[in-house]
């Protein structure tokens, strides 16, 4: 890996081993990068930092702009804003090559993280016995809804983890965690699937590594491809990971209670009702056209539930938490059994997800705290886990 700004008075990596923090940055605009580097230099002594950025390959990060920092080039990430398998392989290789003691991976829009947030994430893996430091963002209501609807409830119920943002793009990793993730990622890179997202929380839970969730305050969610592109990518990757770790999650593990010490996003209330009409229209259109496909995936009971809500008006539109949990579990089972083409399957889930979003917005605008509703969804996923396990083991059994 070419060093863009090799500073003569910086000792070689072998001599610096033990005190280095490798900071792997995603590609970002110049003003964001400057803000982030300023925050990093305010959090740590410059000599303890090794910055790896894909921008160092191009002229976006000039050599003389940060003379006190050691900057190396990192391979560019893909178009997706998520952390991919290739990112984890690169992180592990760079850490090994440069003798880093821990890794801080910072995704797009990480310039919105404050100095204390960056320090907490890094210190958690540098000084404590934590293997995976993961942020808990304080997001406005109606933000990160795929996470709230599918990623968080599934990860919680199946891996007994209370990590609120399993797809966080800012992570602190110990060396052994980085090696473990790189090992998992190599399966994908070997198959030319380096763009696939990885699930660090699931890997850490299966390996028995320590996870620390840290409150990092407000965060700007990164822009990316549209929902129809990113939704199948993310949910498909999670379903694949769940499928691969079936032997682990089928054993009973109680979900830890949502303790008050566990950081949670602030209890925002939805002050303004979002417009749910387009989402309801999307659901109605799908209900008219996708019945044939849904009936291959969902049992009659769930189809009946959908039929009931399809006739409801906008003000009273609700999807019960148990019905939503069963729908997601049935799609997970169909993904495993390849009932229909997997791309089609995940595409057919999008209108149902939009219906859940409309229902969630209705519930929160009626005065319910969004976090309370999301916790209720998690509990429903936990309660329906026996249904998933039963159908996973005996998929051909009668299922009304």
């Amino acid at each position, binding site marked *: 890996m070419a060093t863009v700004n090799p500073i003569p008075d910086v000792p070689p990596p072998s001599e610096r081993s033990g005190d280095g923090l490798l900071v792997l940055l995603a590609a970002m605009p110049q003003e964001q990068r400057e803000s982030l580097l300023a925050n990093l230099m305010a959090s740590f002594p410059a000599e303890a930092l090794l910055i790896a950025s894909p921008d160092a390959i191009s002229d976006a990060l000039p050599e003389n702009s940060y003379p006190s920092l050691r900057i190396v080039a990192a391979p560019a990430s893909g178009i997706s*804003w998520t952390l991919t398998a290739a990112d984890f392989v690169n992180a592990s290789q760079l850490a090994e090559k440069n003798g880093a003691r821990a890794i801080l991976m910072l995704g797009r829009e990480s310039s919105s993280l404050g100095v204390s947030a960056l320090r907490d994430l890094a210190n958690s893996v540098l000084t404590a016995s934590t293997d995976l430091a993961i942020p808990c963002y304080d997001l*406005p*209501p*109606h*933000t*990160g*809804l*795929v*996470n709230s609807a599918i990623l968080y409830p599934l990860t919680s119920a199946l891996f007994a983890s209370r990590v609120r943002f399993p*797809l966080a793009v800012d992570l602190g990793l110990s060396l052994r965690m980085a090696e473990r993730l790189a090992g998992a990622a190599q*399966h*994908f890179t*070997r*198959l030319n*699937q380096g763009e*696939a997202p990885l699930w660090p929380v699931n890997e850490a839970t299966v390996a028995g590594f320590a996870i620390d969730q840290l409150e990092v305050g407000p965060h700007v*969610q*990164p*822009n*990316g*491809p*549209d*929902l*129809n592109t*990113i*939704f199948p990518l*993310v949910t498909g990757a999670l379903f*694949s*990971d769940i*499928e*691969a770790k079936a032997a682990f999650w089928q054993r009973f593990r109680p979900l830890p209670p949502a303790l008050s010490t566990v950081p949670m996003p602030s209890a925002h209330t939805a002050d*303004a009702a*979002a*417009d749910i*009409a*387009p*989402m309801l*229209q*999307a659901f109605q*259109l*799908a209900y*008219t*056209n*996708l019945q044939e*496909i849904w009936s291959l995936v969902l049992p009659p009971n769930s189809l009946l539930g959908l039929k009931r809500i399809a006739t409801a008006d906008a003000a009273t539109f609700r999807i019960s938490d148990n019905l939503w949990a069963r729908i997601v579990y049935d799609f997970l089972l169909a993904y*495993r*059994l*390849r009932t*229909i*083409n997997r*791309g*089609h399957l995940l*595409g*057919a889930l*999008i*209108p149902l997800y*939009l219906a859940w*979003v409309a229902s969630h*917005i209705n519930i929160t605008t009626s005065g319910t705290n969004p976090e309370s509703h999301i916790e209720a969804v998690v509990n429903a996923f936990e309660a329906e886990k026996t249904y998933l396990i039963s159908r996973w083991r005996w998929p051909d059994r009668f299922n009304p």
Partner: protein
Amino acid sequence: MQNVLATMLQPDSNESLQPLYTGNNSIWHHMSDALHQSIYRVLSLLISVLPGILAFIVALAIFTLIGMALSALLRRGLSAAKFDDRIARNSGNVDWAPSTSPTALIARASFWACVLLGLIIGASAFDASYATAAALPSSLLPYLTHVVGAAFLLIAGTLSARFLARSVLIGAVNAQLQYARFLSLGIKWLVLVLTGAMVLDHLQIGGNVVELAFGILFGGIVLTLALAVGLGSRDLVSRSLESHAEHSGEHGVAPTTPPATGSGDSISHF
């Protein structure tokens, strides 16, 4: 065998010695001769084909049995060698459904390969015995291969039509196109019409009529779809262009959510 049959089918010589009416006797004699000769030819032909049919059936049965044995052997051997686990380890997260595990696939493939081999050998045996008779039209066997090819075309075309129809339906629904089903049906029938025309052409049925009918049908469906999409998606295209222009003016990046999802400003899916 042929001599015996010829003897059996020869007209009785005594009959010609008892004429009631001389003119009718001659006609009857000729008709009887002609009938007997044609029956003789048909029976001879059937007898000459029978060994070929028998050879075909025997070859097919033997190779089917071999295929079953080989399939069972492979299934046991690969299961004992934990072949599925090895494949799963080497192919990362690409997992297999229980009904389509690598072992099951290999066993099934070997069975059907044996059946196919039996069919080929049976057909060759049939061909060899049939050529000696050389009485049936010589285009029958090549035509059978065309029939098999046409069957494959039909299966592939039907599967492609279903796959494409579903892809279009789901894509159109997620893009909130009101005519999603119509579009999906149009694509499905386009592929089916194309498949039908290819199958008929492969079977050499219809000739120019099929080509002409296919051209009219295909062109008609494409024109209908083009009109429907062109008229129906004006709003969608204008909304998309407006949204793109606004976002490129503000940030220079693509919008995060499509206008079709209708998410308000306060909603972010990720």
